[in-house]
């Protein structure tokens, strides 16, 4: 166990904390136990495992939320999806432990995402959208309790104030909702109609002012309870934005020297963390030995993502690949189930023209064995994730990295076209790549190749490969157990139930429509 080293020095926002979490009343659709301004640090001891696990779970929610937006959903459309992500990842056994997990994970990610302007902006955007979704899910009474509990500078109207502005309020709400029914509901529904409105300084709700969706009088904005989320999210954003900057400045004080070597690596890796399945140990997943060196050309045609295809082709044509490329491709091949002996055979054959016989043994054999953890510090290296590949920048004469990022528009278009992808998807992929959405571009290529939609998105080249094989050969092959069984990928020829998975090299290829 480690003490909660973050102490109160992490710039806590000026807002007075709410001691009372809001209990969710029965009947609210998602059992969300609480919503917090995160103005108070979790107080007790925390294990390093909990520290990391909570942060990773929250990251899954935030990344999922970001993915939804990247897919073009509007904030109001993602509401339910976001809430179910929260249910899935942030819920713990009890109400108390859920609140704790929410708070702990938020603070850990603050540390991880405070360090650069870009990280801060991303984190702030996702946290605000998450806050919005969760606030919207509260009942009006809960929202009001939250606003009062956190002492936000807004209060419901008094009856006298209400009478004074009632007519203009009604006209405004009619203009905003466009519905007489909805307007009447606001004014008649509540026992005390004045309590359906808050008064706030107009500066607090710029989004409502800018779109003329609020009544203004003498500098006050009259905000209906349906719009209260705008009231709450502004102070949340302001406090978090400020806290992130303060935290960044105090990072070294926050993690004391005694803790630095334990916490810093975790925190620093979080912001680049890959959250998909673990492809590091093919043996555990039972795929080792399923792929032979001789299968690689065929598998490359069938199921390699563009980055790996480009490298396999370059290797085949020039009989050479620079070190970074050998790492990226070699580890990927390990991840799809190529055992060490087969890997040695593959690389030896491909490089025979430039590194015959002993030259290969001297210069490259070590490198191949090293990838499999048989040399050096014997670490079993992990196949690279998309984010790692996208981040690497190939130099002159190098072909690793993500082609969606590194290729020029024309080169990219012709490279994708060679994969026999439908023209519409070629366009889509090029447009996505141009807009900087490299993984979405890759997913578009996947979809264009397989003729079905890519539900999971592409986060890892090995995932691209396995999803592809699943579609082409059915669930059982060669992905092995433990991988997204719930995906329900439709295949023409699912392997017969109970049939033991055959190695790819001897599997009868029943569905090769797209294989040249």
């Amino acid at each position, binding site marked *: 166990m480690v003490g909660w080293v973050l102490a109160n020095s992490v710039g806590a926002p000026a807002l007075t904390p709410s001691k009372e979490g809001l209990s969710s009343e029965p009947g609210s659709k998602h059992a969300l136990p609480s919503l917090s301004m995160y103005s108070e640090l979790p107080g007790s001891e925390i294990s390093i495992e909990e520290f990391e696990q909570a942060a990773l779970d929250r990251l899954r929610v935030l990344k999922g939320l970001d993915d939804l937006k990247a897919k073009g959903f509007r904030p109001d459309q993602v509401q339910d999806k976001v809430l179910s992500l929260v249910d899935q990842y942030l819920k713990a056994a009890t109400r108390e432990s859920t609140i704790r997990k929410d708070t702990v994970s938020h603070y850990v990610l603050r540390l991880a995402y405070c360090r650069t302007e870009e990280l801060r902006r991303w984190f702030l955007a996702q946290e605000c959208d998450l806050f919005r979704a969760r606030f919207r899910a509260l009942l009006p009474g809960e929202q009001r309790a939250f606003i009062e509990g956190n002492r936000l500078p807004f209060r419901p109207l008094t009856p006298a104030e209400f009478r004074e502005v009632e007519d*203009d309020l009604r*006209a405004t709400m009619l203009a905003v909702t466009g519905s007489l029914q909805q307007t009447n509901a606001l004014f008649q529904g509540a026992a005390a109609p004045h309590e359906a409105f808050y008064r706030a300084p107009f500066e607090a709700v*710029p989004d409502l002012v*800018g779109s*003329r969706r609020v009544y203004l009088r003498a500098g006050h904005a009259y905000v209906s309870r349906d719009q209260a989320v705008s009231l709450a999210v502004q102070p949340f954003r302001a406090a978090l934005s400020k806290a992130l900057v303060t935290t960044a400045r105090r990072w070294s004080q926050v993690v004391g020297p005694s803790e630095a070597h334990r916490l810093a690596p975790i925190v620093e890796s979080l912001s680049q963390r890959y959250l998909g399945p673990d492809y590091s140990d093919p043996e555990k997943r039972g795929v080792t030995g399923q792929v032979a060196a001789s299968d690689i050309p065929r598998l490359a045609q069938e199921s390699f993502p563009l980055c790996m295809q480009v490298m396999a082709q370059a290797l085949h044509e020039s009989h050479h690949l620079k070190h970074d490329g050998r790492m990226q491709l070699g580890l990927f091949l390990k991840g799809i189930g190529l055992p060490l002996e087969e890997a040695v055979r593959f690389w030896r054959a491909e490089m025979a023209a430039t590194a015959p016989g002993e030259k290969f043994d001297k210069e490259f054999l070590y490198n191949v064995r090293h990838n499999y953890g048989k040399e050096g510090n014997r670490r079993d290296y992990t196949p690279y994730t998309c984010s790692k590949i996208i981040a690497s920048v190939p130099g002159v004469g190098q072909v690793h990295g993500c082609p969606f990022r590194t290729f020029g528009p024309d080169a990219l278009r012709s490279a994708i076209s060679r994969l026999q992808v439908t023209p519409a998807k070629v366009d889509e992929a090029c447009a996505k790549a141009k807009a900087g959405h490299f993984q979405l571009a890759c997913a578009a290529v996947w979809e264009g190749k397989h003729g079905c939609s890519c539900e999971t998105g592409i986060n890892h080249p090995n995932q691209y490969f396995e999803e592809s094989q699943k579609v082409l050969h059915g669930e059982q092959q060669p992905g092995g157990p433990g991988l997204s069984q719930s995906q329900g990928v439709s295949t023409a020829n699912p392997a017969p139930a109970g049939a033991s998975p055959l190695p790819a090299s001897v599997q009868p290829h029943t569905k090769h429509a797209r294989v040249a």
Partner: protein
Amino acid sequence: MGTQEMMKLYYGWIFPYRDFYKWLAYGNDSKLPQADAGFMQRREFCFTLDGDIFDLDGLQAAIKERCPSKLDIGPVYNINPARRAAYAGSGQTFTPVERELVFDIDLTDYDDVRTCGSGGHICNKCWPLMAVAIQILDAGLRRDFGFQHILYVYSGRRGVHAWVCDDRARCLSDEQRTAVANYFAVYRGQEGGLARLALGLEEHPAVTRAAAILEPVFVERLLPEQGLLSDDKRQEALLAYIPSERVRERARQRWAQGEAGDDVARWHALEEEVAKEQATLAKARDTRGAKALDRAMRSVVFAHAYPRLDLEVSKKMNHLLKAPFCVHPKTGKVCVPIDPERAHKFDPETVVTVGRLLDQLNKARGGVKGSDAGEEWRSTDLVPAIQTFRACFLDGLQGACRESLAARARESAAQPTLVW
């Protein structure tokens, strides 16, 4: 005498430095302990990046020395703009900390709805567009946003600037400035010959109020003076807003028969046809159709008369804007304040020019220059302009500044001090 020569004399003798400085110091020129002595120093003037302006004399000297053809005012920064290089790398970033909320309306943005001229043209026929813009802006800024200290200035050529100077307005963030500007943005450009208007299906109270201000100006001034229904082309352009072929056709017939004489009578004829059609629709219980006609008539008024703001000027704290009382280099006209209550009475064609002011100064002084530099305007036609500046703006602002400094002093007196 060349314009440059005249400018030199104007900034040397007539420019009302004292009033100008009193405004921009916001009370910080007082002896009150809460006054911020470095306040003026941190203000950006567009020609002063290499000079210090920290008091009245400095301002006067700087302007006289450089004799600018244009004088723009920027924000107050956290550090003196002239010294910003010295702070580079100190960890203190150079950022604007306060700035008047400003608006810019320019007649060139109305070229599709004015017939008297275009581009840099301005006359008494298109001035009502500017006057009504001031009315709308003033009503919204005062009643909706609660601002009180607003200065309207003729921009020297074909437009109007507004400076909102309340404490609260000066410290708005860029996001909040954008929100205020968008609140006023009903006119959103042109599309297929029609104005794109953000009116909404039902009206916001601010839109209703704007309609009440616009309608009489449209009917009494713009229709006849701009001749908006005086030929076929203009008539068709206006009828394009009406969503009923039957109404359009009947209006065309009545106008063609010459039954309706002038533009105003033609408009009333159209109104009658709309009302008739609405009665028919009401009988058929087509309330939606009747409403659409109401909206169309309102759209015509908004498209021709609603203020078309240059939003970009208002959105950012660090946008420069031409200072009041400077001289427009092309027209020689002085950027004089406008009384918002009398905006329609303002005559852009007779605005005082730098040449006339110099003549008057010469006559008054008999060619001999007095010693009271900076107050020489007293013997010229700039007097009413400065009276307007004081009465409509500066007097109230100074009272408020004194009040807010005194309040700050009381506040800090109530705080326990840390210095023993």
